């Protein structure tokens, strides 16, 4: 849009243009600004959680498959990272690669069973596998994983990168987040991403166009599992210990909540959701004792009143600012559909 720079409207447009062009830098700057407000420890936690939400949103927001057991993939990454640090080598980068690889391998093994299902079955079978994984980590492999007590990890210093320093972890997590955002944005704006959204709307039609939807879903699923595993590994890099809470199926709702609150199907929505959820879960229990109840009420409100989430709301607002007439007609077309 090339409007002359006069009046407040063009100023808004210019700002938006700037934000769109340098969004990665803006996101990085916002996280840096957030750090003094909360603590660095929390900021790292927030950024890693955002990576997890982004990975989850690829399946939920773009492909339209609600997984109710995504903690499994996070947990596998976390345990793969911790175990490879313990038994293979103390190199954290190698361990991160192993964690991502094991997430992808798990996606490859479970994918053919999981991606064939849709809707409720997809949610429940993920939950079932998560339960199996939780049991394996808690009971069956407790000799290696430490069961309920968990295990602590230690990693060697590589060159000048020492992950026992919080600043290093912070910079690394920020870098990873930016890279993941960049990668996912490229992926979702490519033909592949458009086809994924097509699968969400109507899988039969995508099939009809001659695309192998099974392969598309498998790739999306594996990208999501390996990125979730990567996020799990980063969590362990930050905390230096792993417990079964990283694979607990009851915590799967956290990422769903984050994805909903920000608005599914958008990279920025996932970021807003991740940060908002973490802010709520970190600070709300200090003020309200019954915060689970509060969470439930917010979830109900989101489902019944604000399905598009915060980002969807912002987008609708911007659209109204840019072209008021277009919104009207879109509303009408939505009603007729």
């Amino acid at each position: 849009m090339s409007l002359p720079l006069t009046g407040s409207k063009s100023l808004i447009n210019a700002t938006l243009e700037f934000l769109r062009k340098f969004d990665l830098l803006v996101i990085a700057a916002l996280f840096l600004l957030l750090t003094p407000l909360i603590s660095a420890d929390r900021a790292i936690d927030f950024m890693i959680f955002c990576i997890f939400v982004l990975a989850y949103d690829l399946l939920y927001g773009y492909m339209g498959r609600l997984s109710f057991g995504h903690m499994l993939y996070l947990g596998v990454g976390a345990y793969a990272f911790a175990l490879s640090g313990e038994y293979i080598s103390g190199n954290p980068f190698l361990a991160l690669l192993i964690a991502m690889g094991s997430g992808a391998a798990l996606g490859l093994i479970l994918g053919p069973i999981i991606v064939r299902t849709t809707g409720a079955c997809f949610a429940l079978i993920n939950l079932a596998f998560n339960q199996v994984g939780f049991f394996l980590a808690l009971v069956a492999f407790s000799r290696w994983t430490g069961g309920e007590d968990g295990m602590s990890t230690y990693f060697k210093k590589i060159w000048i990168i020492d992950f026992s320093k919080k600043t290093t972890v912070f910079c690394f997590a920020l870098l990873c987040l930016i890279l993941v955002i960049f990668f996912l944005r490229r992926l979702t704006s490519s033909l592949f991403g458009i086809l994924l959204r097509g699968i969400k709307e109507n899988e039969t039609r995508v099939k009809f166009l001659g695309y192998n939807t099974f392969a598309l879903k498998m790739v999306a699923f594996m990208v999501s599992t390996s990125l979730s595993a990567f996020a799990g590994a980063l969590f362990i890099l930050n905390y230096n210990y792993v417990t079964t809470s990283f694979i607990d199926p009851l915590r799967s709702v956290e990422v769903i909540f984050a994805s909903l609150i920000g608005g599914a199907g958008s990279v920025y929505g996932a970021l807003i959701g991740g940060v908002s959820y973490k802010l709520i879960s970190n600070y709300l229990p200090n003020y309200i004792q019954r915060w689970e109840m509060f969470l439930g009420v917010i979830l109900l409100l989101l489902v019944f009143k604000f399905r598009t989430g915060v980002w969807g709301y912002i987008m609708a607002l911007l659209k109204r600012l840019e072209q008021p007439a277009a919104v009207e007609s879109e509303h009408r077309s939505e009603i007729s559909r």
Partner: protein
Amino acid sequence: MISTLAYGLTVGGILYIISIGLSLTFGTMRIVNFAHALVYTLGAYILVTALPKLGLGFFLSGLIAVIAVIPVSYLIERYVIRRLYGQSVDYAIIATYAVLLIGVDAIKWIWGAIPIPLSDPVGISVSILGIDLPGYRLIIILISLLIFVGLEVFFSRTVVGKIIVAGLEDKEAVASLGISVDKYFAVAFTLGSCLAALGGVLYAPITAVNPYMGFQVLLICFAVVVVGGLGSIRGTFLAAFALGMVMSVTGRFWGPAADTMVFVVLGLVLILKPIEA
């Protein structure tokens, strides 16, 4: 051997009683109802409250618990489930999970998070082929069989039951006959909720009553509903007892693996027969 069998039948019976409501909700309204676990937990909590306060004995208190969940299930149906009707399955899952979160937190608020143990209400044991079996377990098996027969009669002989079965098959066709299907689905929902509370009541003496007792059972019941064929009433019966046996046989060899084995079976079933739902 016989005790394993009896345990499997007991677990299967309880699973059947709880799952039937889930199966009905899914079959009629295409909704995966996580709030079912709340009703189940609530039933058990009302039982442990009514038992010492009223002094009516176990079975009367259980009856009170079953009746007491009716208003709760009505509220859930009226204000959450009915609004989700015909919408995407995802939102139904999230909304009913939110109800479960709110309810479990409310239970923690009222009763506290400490598990409440309950003693065996019957106490006598029956000897079959030289092996002593707790009489209470036999009563559970008997009750579940009675409920199965009762539901069979309800669904095949009464008008309300027939409408619900017809609605399971084809909702539009039933609605076009001038029958207000949603009203009958609400009946099915309430019936399922009462049975869930009954399941909670019957299971309470076997485990301790705690706020999170619903979560674990709910997952297994979902497995029962999926294995039995979504929305199939007889399939649910068979699947419940089959998975109950799986649990008890696994539990005999390796206790902690009992629940997990159910999900392995679920995975196998979904590999062999994926469901489009």
